[in-house]
């Protein structure tokens, strides 16, 4: 039976791969090619999804391995943590593949669409392989394929310079991050002497921490933890929307997976790791959402929200690890469960939102929020689904985002009353406070998005004539939205996988889950009760209005009689006072051409939020690296005979070193 299951996994991978390769041979038959990609990838993802979900629920572990080139072990192992991450990979992969059918419908771009299918399947496959890798070799191979495939997907619209720069920047980041991962693995290999990612026997405490910190930098740059996030706001607007959904919803979580796997593997000092993750998470979360608030480009805004949500996940995991170090299983379980459940939740609502942004791009032609408005009237399905995603990402009940944040809050509030030592206590206070601030800022940000993009009056002609998208772009969103609501209303069932994965990280006996089940039941009742209440009120209001006179008129302009759509509050004005309040972290750069003469030229105003982290990184790190490297440029002169000489010299030096040793 177990063997069969492995074959099913293999067939799922093969189907996904076929979905990527077949389109390359169907270039002359556009409609067939367009169908082949999503069909192959989608069916493979369905098989993989069912398989990994059942494996996850049964908590089975499977291993496969063979030696490559005689001595490099390529081994794969599916345990609970792997299946936990496999589920969103296949689910969002499926949604993205279906969505791409109508999203990429440009006949003139046949080749590009075929290549896109290839890299999409490669990305899904490599992500799946990363999370099931059991040896460093297979992990790093899959990791690098994942980076290259996603960079190629960002290049879909390579005609624009900004997109090429975005892909280049992402590539540098992923390679730099990859180097840190390699460094961590190298250190681990030299300490343990094996390529295995299972827990090594004996490592000195310092080595454990050093390996973990190196890995944290490498995986953190993929996950988009705050000071290492600058590739995200460029890459996501450049990529096609379903690719953004997949990258933001799933791929950056692979960074989180890496951190967790490494934590499990090297077991660094939890007294340091817990607070460290809380600090990083609180910082990424707060500043990430703050920068999101200042954006005018919808997809860029969503990219910064990924930074925020990675922050929330890290806070949850940090609180959990703090609980482990303080030997409070309750805090550990709720913190880790909250953080892990947020991995799923964010995958769901973020892909929902990115697909919504894709619909806006498709229906209007721009995602610049100051050129949109009033889309709810022409694109009601997209509008309502985007609203659902917005409520979920703000962590508002009764949707799924609330559940994971609630678990982290419960861990934190329990931690405050549990008589911890002063230091852990203060970190718990920091965690809870940062979650509260993030929640408030997210509400500010998404009232802005929903209000400026979907409500009000259209600001441009294009927004006025927006059209709703075709069914393949709506159906995946409906499914994801339904799952968001289902998790929000029935958290008990859906949080069990997260509980199991959390139990794996905590180690020891199976955790006591009665508290989680009790709380989940209460949340279901409270959320359902609220919805019932709301439904009753809606019904009463309808009854009340049945006999009332209802008129329609222009908006009350407070005495002003000639309002235009351009006078509405814009995304910049809505966010301005909040951004000014957080001044040390935010700086608004403004260009303003004032009216000076009697017959003035057209006035103009432009504002732009400066990402201080990026600014400082550029100024103090980027430039110094550039200066240093420009000194070394003389090595790269283009004469091939010298390059051969380098190789020869290097070989001789290495040989001599071996001899001397």
């Amino acid at each position: 039976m177990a063997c069969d299951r492995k074959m099913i996994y293999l067939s799922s991978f093969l189907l996904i791969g076929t979905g990527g390769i077949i389109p390359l041979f169907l270039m002359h038959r556009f409609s067939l090619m367009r169908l082949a990609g999503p069909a192959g990838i989608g069916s493979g993802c369905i098989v993989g999804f069912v398989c990994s979900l059942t494996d996850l629920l049964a908590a089975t572990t499977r291993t496969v391995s063979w030696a490559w080139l005689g001595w490099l072990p390529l081994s794969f192992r599916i345990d609970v943590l792997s299946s936990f991450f496999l589920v969103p990979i296949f689910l969002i992969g499926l949604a993205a593949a279906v969505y791409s059918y109508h999203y990429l419908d440009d006949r003139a771009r046949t080749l590009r669409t075929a290549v896109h299918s290839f890299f999409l399947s490669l990305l899904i496959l490599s992500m799946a392989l990363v999370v099931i890798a059991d040896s460093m070799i297979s992990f790093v191979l899959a990791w690098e394929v994942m980076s290259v495939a996603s960079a190629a997907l960002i290049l879909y619209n390579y005609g624009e310079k900004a997109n090429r720069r975005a892909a280049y920047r992402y590539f540098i980041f992923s390679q730099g991050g990859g180097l840190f991962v390699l460094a961590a693995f190298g250190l681990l290999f030299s300490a343990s002497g094996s390529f295995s990612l299972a827990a090594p026997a004996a490592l000195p405490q310092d080595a454990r921490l050093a390996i973990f910190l190196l890995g944290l930098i490498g995986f953190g740059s993929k996950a988009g933890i705050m000071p290492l996030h600058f590739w995200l706001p460029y890459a996501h607007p450049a990529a096609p929307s379903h690719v953004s959904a997949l990258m933001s919803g799933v791929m950056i979580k692979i960074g989180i997976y890496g951190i967790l796997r490494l934590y499990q593997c090297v077991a660094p000092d939890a007294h340091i790791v817990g607070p460290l993750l809380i600090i990083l998470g609180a910082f990424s979360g707060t500043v990430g959402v703050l920068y999101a608030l200042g954006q005018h480009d919808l997809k860029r805004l969503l990219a910064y929200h990924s930074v925020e949500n990675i922050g929330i996940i890290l806070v949850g995991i940090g609180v959990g690890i703090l609980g482990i170090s303080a030997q409070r299983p309750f805090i550990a379980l709720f913190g880790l469960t909250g953080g892990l459940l947020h991995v799923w939740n964010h995958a769901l609502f973020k892909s929902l939102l990115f697909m919504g942004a894709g619909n806006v791009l498709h229906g209007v032609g721009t995602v610049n929020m100051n050129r949109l408005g009033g889309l709810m009237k022409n694109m009601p399905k997209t509008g309502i689904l985007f609203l659902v995603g917005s409520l979920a990402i703000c962590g508002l009940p009764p949707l799924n985002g609330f559940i994971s944040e609630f678990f982290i809050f419960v861990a934190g509030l329990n931690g405050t009353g549990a008589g911890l030592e002063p230091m852990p206590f203060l970190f718990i206070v920091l965690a809870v406070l940062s979650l509260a601030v993030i929640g408030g800022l997210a509400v500010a940000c998404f009232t802005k998005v929903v209000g400026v993009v979907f409500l009000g009056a259209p600001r441009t002609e294009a927004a006025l004539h927006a059209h709703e998208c075709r069914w393949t772009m709506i159906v995946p969103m409906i499914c994801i939205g339904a799952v968001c609501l289902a998790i929000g209303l029935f958290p008990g069932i859906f949080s069990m996988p997260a509980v199991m994965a959390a139990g794996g990280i905590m180690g020891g006996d199976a955790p006591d889950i009665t508290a989680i089940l009790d709380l989940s039941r209460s949340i279901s009742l409270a959320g359902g009760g609220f919805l019932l209440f709301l439904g009753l009120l809606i019904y009463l209001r309808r009854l009340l209005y049945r006999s009332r006179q209802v008129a329609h008129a222009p908006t009350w302009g407070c005495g002003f009689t000639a309002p235009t759509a351009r006078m509405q509050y814009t995304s910049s004005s809505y966010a301005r006072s909040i951004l000014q309040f957080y001044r040390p972290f935010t700086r608004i750069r403004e260009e303003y051409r004032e009216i000076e003469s009697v017959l003035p030229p057209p006035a103009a105003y432009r504002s732009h939020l400066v990402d201080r982290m990026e600014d400082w990184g550029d100024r103090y790190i980027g430039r110094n690296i550039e200066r240093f490297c420009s000194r070394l440029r003389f090595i790269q002169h283009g004469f091939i005979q010298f390059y051969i000489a380098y190789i020869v010299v290097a070989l001789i030096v290495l040989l001599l070193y071996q001899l001397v040793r």
Partner: protein
Amino acid sequence: MMTPFLGAIFLFFASLFLAPFLMGVILKVKAFFGGKKGPSLLIKYHTLAKLLRKGSVYSRSTTFIFGLGPLVSLAASLTGLAFLPIAGQNPVFSFPGDVVFVWYLFGLARFFVAAAALDTASPFEGMGAAREVFFGLLTEAAIFLVFLQFAFLSGQYSLASFLAGEGAINIFSREGFLLVLIVPAIFFVMLTENARVPVDDPATHLELTMIHEVMILDHSGPDLAIMEAAVFARMFFYAAFIADLLLPGGFGPGMRILLFFLLLLLIYLAIGVLESITARLKMDQVPKFILTSFALAFFAIILSLEVTP
């Protein structure tokens, strides 16, 4: 003999019924300070009845969100009230962590009210919404600090465990001195969340200076009545929260309920007096005002590190 659950439901409806009356008290106090006779104490009931009898005018730019704003706000206020212990009695519903649920429901209400305001395409309403979400996020930080404090003191984290039963936190208990800092903090949050002086002036006539009032400019008839009812219930929620903290223990239930409503009356009187004798703050001073309550709660946390619960 009433069962506790029926008693809680009775108190819930009594609160709902009393909330408009207490708002009338504020108006009466303000009229008194202005040397006027003022409207009847029952004015708010009249207002609600009048609005419910009317029809509505809708802006042409609005969608279904516009009607949903007041409804979600009212549903959130009522659900929140169902979790609040009134007069130190057990509430209708309670579960560990319900504080987070209730405040996030208030967040949901804020989301929909702000979205409804933006739905009208009015620049004034957009401005009001921007201010509302800004001040809301600051109060949320302050109030969660208060909850951390309460969780620290009681070891539990539901409104019922904070405010009802044996281990209820109140100003006369051993840790009561911390509440000297906490109660003003919650009072400031109440003034901000319910758009009272010195943050917002419900009586102002200039749209540019409004926060809450400007967001509901386009709501009319029953929609406006629903919105007003939500505000009354929210105001009652916060005032009752404070009254619970000030309620001395050691009386029978009947006496406690009587004392509680007296305290409640005192709090509304205090709001009326405050509104009569202070001017509202400049808009850029408001964040500092809210951060004062944050700072008070934070000092209380620092002090409480010395207290073993």
